[in-house]
């Protein structure tokens, strides 16, 4: 069964009199356990699409079925519930909460799930272990390198056991060496724990860690190709 199924999705923004068509009829499906890269020029609608897939936004037109459920027209509270259970986000700018330890940052999704303090701690520790940062649990973001911060962010995305990880340019702020480490981590998570990962990237080198590349231009999908590994 497809985990992500988008069917003829449109998204437009109106800026005064001007309509911006960020997505103009996009359809594809991503099965469970896939590792997909989305590429395309700046402004081609990649982030817009990720926001919709991540249930941060809803399409103007078209259908989006996530994990068998139609989420195309849900309200903000229902979307929040789905994000909580189904989706883990990794951002280009890491987006960790400053003045909080790595452990507390990783605990955050469980907090809104109502997990008790002790279980939260254990779960967060386990997630940090998966990204090899259990020895940095007490460090605050500013005491960590960029690559480490991104790994904490990935641990946070793992914390609520969501099947789907969405990463919008996760290596955009990292050098090539650390970028590669993050990619290897994604590959490992994908292969060992069966996480479905969708990432946006501008770098073909990074895209080639995944097994499928969707290429976008002007709000439309140009290509959908398998990558040989």
């Amino acid at each position, binding site marked *: 069964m497809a985990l992500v199924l988008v069917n003829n999705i449109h998204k437009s923004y109106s800026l005064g009199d001007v309509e911006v068509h960020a997505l103009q009829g996009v359809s594809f499906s991503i099965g469970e356990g896939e590792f997909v890269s989305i590429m395309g020029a700046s402004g081609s609608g990649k982030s817009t699409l990720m926001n919709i897939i991540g249930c941060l936004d809803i399409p103007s037109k078209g259908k989006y079925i996530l994990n068998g459920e139609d989420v195309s027209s849900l309200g903000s509270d229902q979307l929040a519930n789905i*994000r909580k259970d189904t989706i883990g986000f990794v951002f280009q700018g890491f987006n960790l909460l400053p003045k909080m330890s790595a452990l507390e940052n990783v605990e955050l999704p469980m907090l809104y799930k109502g997990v008790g303090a002790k279980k939260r701690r254990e779960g967060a520790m386990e997630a940090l272990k998966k990204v090899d940062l259990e020895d940095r649990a007490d460090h605050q973001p500013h005491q960590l390198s960029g690559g480490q911060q991104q790994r904490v962010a990935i641990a946070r995305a793992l914390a609520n056991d969501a099947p789907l990880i969405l990463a919008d340019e996760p290596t955009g702020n990292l050098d090539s060496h650390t970028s590669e480490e993050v990619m290897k981590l994604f590959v490992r998570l994908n292969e060992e724990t069966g996480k479905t990962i969708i990432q946006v990237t501008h770098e073909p080198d990074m895209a080639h860690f995944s097994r499928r590349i969707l290429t976008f231009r002007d709000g439309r999908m140009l290509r959908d190709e398998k990558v040989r590994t």
Partner: protein
Amino acid sequence: MMSFVETSRISFRALKANKTRSALTMLGIVIGVMAVIIMFAVGTGANRQISQQFASLGTNILMVRPGADRGPGGGSRNTVNTLVVEDAYSITEHCGAVAYAAPVYGGNAQTVYGNANYPAKVTGTILDYFAIQDWELVSGRAFTDQDVRSATKVCVIGQTIVEELFGGEDPLGKIIRVKKIPMVVIGILEELGDSPRGNDQDNVVIVPISTAQRRMFSPSRPDTVSMISVKAIDETHLDIAQKQIEDLLALRHKIRPGQDNDFSVRNLTQFVESAKSATAVMTMLLTAVAGVSLLVGGIGIMNIMLVSVTERTREIGIRMAVGAKSSDIRLQFLVEALTLSLLGGMIGIVLGVGGAQFISTGFGWATEVSLMSVLLSFGFSGFVGIFFGYYPAYKASLLNPIEALRYE
């Protein structure tokens, strides 16, 4: 849904992360609550003191003054000399509910002993006045009815006079000059302290009323009195006594029905009430001012919370991305505002109680912190927190997660 405890913990951490700002924001509430508590404490203390002092004067006392009644607190002026000594004796004789009635006539006069002199308050009266006032003598004796009849030149003096004129010397049997008239000191009054209005009650020379009238002050009508002090047989007979006195004096003064009395009978509790209502008005006013400062404190909270929401837009976006609902965000900021205001309230209570203590030890004012004022100001600061915290919290909850995440 997140538990309230967790929400509080998050809010607490956010406030701790910005200690100086949180402290300054609380300051308004701290000062407001402190002011409310102190104002209440001073007001309650003053009331209590008034009651106690009047109670010590005796609650079954009536005062008859010349001139028509001008209402409680108005004070009838001694413009007409309508009361005479005989009125007092008649009251004692004919009013069944009256235990004692004593005429009083006096004024201010210079007292001299040796080289010392002091301006004293001279009270001319009869022996019964000592019973009405519950005055005890520390030594000597009071004057007798015989002294009154023959206008003897004797006097009983209060502690202030003892100190001012005699220093360490024993005044008994000595002759002091009161308005140049030599008087023998036959008794010394116990210490009375200040009156509820702050007058020195020990600055007194008590003489037979006839002596005051005939030898010292010589009023135009020789038996005029400035007041008749009356003690009812007990508190429950106060109203009856008042009625009896009014009827008797109306008859004696030949007041026709429908005509105003040329005297007034006043009850001390009326003075208590008017004194209390005066302090109550003061307390209300000051508390209102304190309340306004609480409100200003609330506006300060709102202001800072709005800044905080803007500053933490990205944090809000992150929280929303990982599954926080609008209501979670709203609650978080509301609890933050509430924590600020309640913490401020608690600090204000501590400082207020301490301040009230300081005022009573430092200035000698009676203060009394009431539980009511503590609960009231704590509740009010909670209310202020919710009221002024709601709008910023609501604004935070309306943020769109995508825009919030993109916020720099």
